[in-house]
C-alpha cells in the first residue's frame, strides 16, 4: 500500500466514505435492469461496450448519457437507432464536457424556476480517450473546473478506434496503429509514452473530489465506482480501461483476460482519489512481467526485448509513483 503520494501532497491514505451510495457487494448482488440493451454494432467482444453496459447497470433509470463521436457513438447508433433505454445525446467529439455542463445547468435552472420537481438526474458523459484526453480535453477541463454535478467517464481503448485505429495520447509506447506503423525508420511503432489523464484531471481541477480508474475485468469494482461518483455532488471523473479486440489485435473472447493481465502487469492500476487522497484498490501480490501483456496482443507483435524493457521501466516508474513497488518474481 502506498505511503506518501508526493504529487498530490497527501498524507497516509485513509478510507474516505462517500455518503449515500449503495454498495454492490458482489456479482450476485448487482442490479439486473439493463439500460444498455442488446442491438448495437460494436465488435464482438468489445470492451468499451461492456464498460457502457456496466455503467448503465450501476447508474440506473434516472440517467442521461452524452456520447461524443467515437465507437461508442458510431457503432451504437448505426442503422438509425440506439441501444439505450435512458435518454442519450450525441455530442461532437470535442465538446462532451460542454454538453453535459449545459444539461446540468439547465436542470438547475428548471428547478430554480420551479419548472422541474423530479429527481436530479445522473448526467454522464461517456467519452473515448480521444474525446477526453486529446481532442475533447478543453471541454472536459472546463466542465471539471466549473464544478458541475456530472460524471465524466473516459473509456480508454487506447486509440482513435472508430476511424480505423489511429494513435491517441493514451496509446501505449510500442503499439502499432495506423499512424504509428512500425518500420525501418521507427521500428517501435508508437515512440512516446501516454499522458496520465487521471493525474491531469486530479491535479488541475480543485472542484473534483472523486476520481477513479476502473477496468472492465473488475466489474463490481467498476459499478461501485460509478455509484460513488454519482452519489458525490459535484464533478467526478472516471478512467476505465477497456480492451478493444479490433485495435489491439486479440481474439474477441480474450477481452477480460487482457483487462486482467493489464492490472496484473501494472500496465493499469485500480485506484481512487477521494478528497485528494489516493487509495489503491487492488495491488497484485506478485506482478507479472509486461512482456506477458505485450505478447498477448498483435499491436505489440513487432516489439524487440529492448523495447519491451523500456515499457517495463515505464510501468515500474509509474507504479513507484503510486507507492506500489510490487516485485516481479524472477522467471
Amino acid at each position, binding site marked *: 500500500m502506498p505511503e506518501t503520494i508526493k504529487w498530490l501532497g497527501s498524507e497516509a491514505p485513509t478510507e474516505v466514505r462517500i455518503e449515500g451510495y449503495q454498495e454492490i457487494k458482489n456479482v450476485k448482488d448487482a442490479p439486473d435492469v439493463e439500460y444498455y440493451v442488446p442491438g448495437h454494432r460494436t465488435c*464482438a467482444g468489445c470492451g468499451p461496450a461492456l464498460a457502457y453496459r456496466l455503467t448503465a447497470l450501476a447508474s440506473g433509470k434516472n440517467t442521461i448519457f452524452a456520447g461524443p463521436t467515437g465507437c461508442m457513438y458510431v457503432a451504437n447508433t448505426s442503422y438509425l437507432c440506439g441501444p439505450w433505454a435512458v435518454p442519450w445525446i450525441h455530442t461532437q467529439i470535442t465538446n462532451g464536457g460542454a454538453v453535459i455542463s449545459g444539461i446540468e445547468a439547465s436542470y438547475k435552472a428548471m428547478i430554480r424556476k420551479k419548472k422541474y420537481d423530479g429527481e436530479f438526474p445522473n448526467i454522464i458523459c461517456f467519452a473515448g480517450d480521444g474525446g477526453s484526453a486529446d481532442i475533447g480535453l478543453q471541454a472536459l477541463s472546463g466542465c471539471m473546473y466549473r464544478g458541475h454535478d456530472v460524471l465524466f467517464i473516459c473509456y480508454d481503448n487506447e*486509440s482513435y478506434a472508430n476511424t480505423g485505429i489511429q494513435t491517441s495520447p493514451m496509446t501505449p509506447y510500442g503499439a502499432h496503429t495506423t499512424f504509428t506503423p512500425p518500420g525501418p525508420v521507427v521500428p517501435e511503432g508508437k515512440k512516446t509514452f501516454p499522458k496520465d489523464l487521471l493525474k491531469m484531471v486530479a491535479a488541475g481541477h480543485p472542484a473534483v473530489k472523486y476520481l477513479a480508474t476502473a477496468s472492465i475485468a473488475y466489474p463490481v469494482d467498476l459499478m461501485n465506482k460509478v455509484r460513488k461518483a454519482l452519489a458525490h455532488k459535484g464533478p467526478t471523473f472516471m478512467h476505465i480501461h477497456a480492451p478493444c479486440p479490433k485495435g489491439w489485435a486479440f481474439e*474477441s473472447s480474450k477481452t477480460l483476460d487482457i483487462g486482467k493481465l493489464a492490472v496484473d502487469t501494472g500496465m493499469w492500476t485500480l485506484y481512487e482519489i477521494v478528497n485528494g487522497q489516493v487509495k489503491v484498490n487492488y495491488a497484485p501480490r506478485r506482478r507479472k512481467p509486461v512482456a506477458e501483456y505485450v505478447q498477448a496482443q498483435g499491436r505489440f507483435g513487432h516489439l524487440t526485448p529492448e523495447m519491451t524493457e523500456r515499457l517495463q521501466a515505464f510501468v515500474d516508474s509509474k507504479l513507484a509513483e503510486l507507492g506500489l513497488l510490487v516485485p516481479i518474481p524472477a522467471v
Partner: protein
Amino acid sequence: MALQPNLIEVTVWYRGVVEGRLARQVTNSLADAAQTEGSYVQAFDNYTDLPDRVYVPCRSYARICPEPIAEPYTYVNSNPSLVVCTDAALVKGCNVLKGIDPGGTLIVNTRRDPEFVLGLVKDLPQKARLKKVATLDAGTAHQPNTPQGGIEGSTEKAGTMRTAAALLGAIAKVTGMVSLETLTKKAPAAAEMMAHGYAFVRELANPDYDPNDTASEAAEFGRRGKVDLIVPAPLPNGSQEGHITGNYRLQRPVVDQKICTACKICWVSCPDACITMVKDDEAAAAAAAAGEADGGLDGGADGAVPAAADGGGSAATGEKVKVNLKYCKGCGICWNVCPLKCIKPVDELDFAGGVVRITYSI
C-alpha cells in the same frame, strides 16, 4: 439486372476485421486479373459497412466489364452475378442472394458440401435465380492477432495469400470470368493454392433454378426504397430491434445447465447483455414461452436445437442461464470466463434453425 448488360458484379461477403484483408485480396486480385485480360474493372468496399467491427457481416466488391463501366458508382453492387462468402454462417445469417442476377453463382468457403449450402438458402425467394452453388475448404480465414491498424483498404500480401488464393482458383474454375493462368501470373507465389482451389472446388447445379423466373425479381424490387427512419428507443431489459446482431455469430454458446451454479460471471461479462439468469418465479412463464424463445427470427422452428441451447429457460428443467441468440455475437467471452467451463462453443451451422436472416436496408 445491372443497367449495363455486359457488366459482371462480384460481391464478397466477409466477417469484419478478421477477414477484411482476405475479402479485399479476392476482389482486388480478381479485378486486377480481369484488367490484364482486357476488361474495364473496379474494386471497392461497401461504404456503410465501414468502419467494420469484429465479426460483422461486410461486403467487398469487384466489377468487370468488356466496355467502359457506366453503372453509377454508389458504393454497392446491386445485382451481383457472383456471390462469394468467406464462411457458411454468413449464408445462414444474411440474405446473400439479395439482388442476384438470374443465372448467378454462389461460392462458399466451408468444409461442408454444396447441398448443405443450398439448404441454407431454401427459404429465400431469390433462390430461383441461383444457377450454381460451389463450396471449397479454403482454410480458416480469421486473423485475430494481426494488427488491424490501417485495415481499412488493406489487403493480404499477394505472395503469402492462402485462403484468398484458393478462393480465386475456385472462382476461375466455376465461373471462368478470369483464367487461372492470368491469376497465377499475377501472383506466382500463390500458384499452388490457386491450383488447389481450382482442383478441389465442388459444384452443384441448383435444381430450383428457373431461367424464366421473373416472380422473385419482381417481389424483390417491387418493395424497394422504404427505410424506416424512426426506430423506437428500447425499453429497459428490452432490445434494440433496429439492429439485430445474431448473424455475427460463428459459434453458439451452449450451457451445460447441470454443471452451471448460476454464479453470474458470464452474465456480468457479456458486452451485449445477451445472458439472463432464470429466476425461480419465472419458471412457469419461461417453460410456456420456450417455443418462441428460440432466439432466431424463424419463430421457434428450431427442432434440432437441444432444449438447453435454444434460449428458452425453465427452472423446472433445471435451467439457470438463458442466452439471447437473436443478439448473441458469438464473441466467446462467456465460454472463456466461465469458472466451471460449462459453456461450450458449438458451430452455428450444427443447428438447423436459429436463422437470423438480416437484410440490410440501407
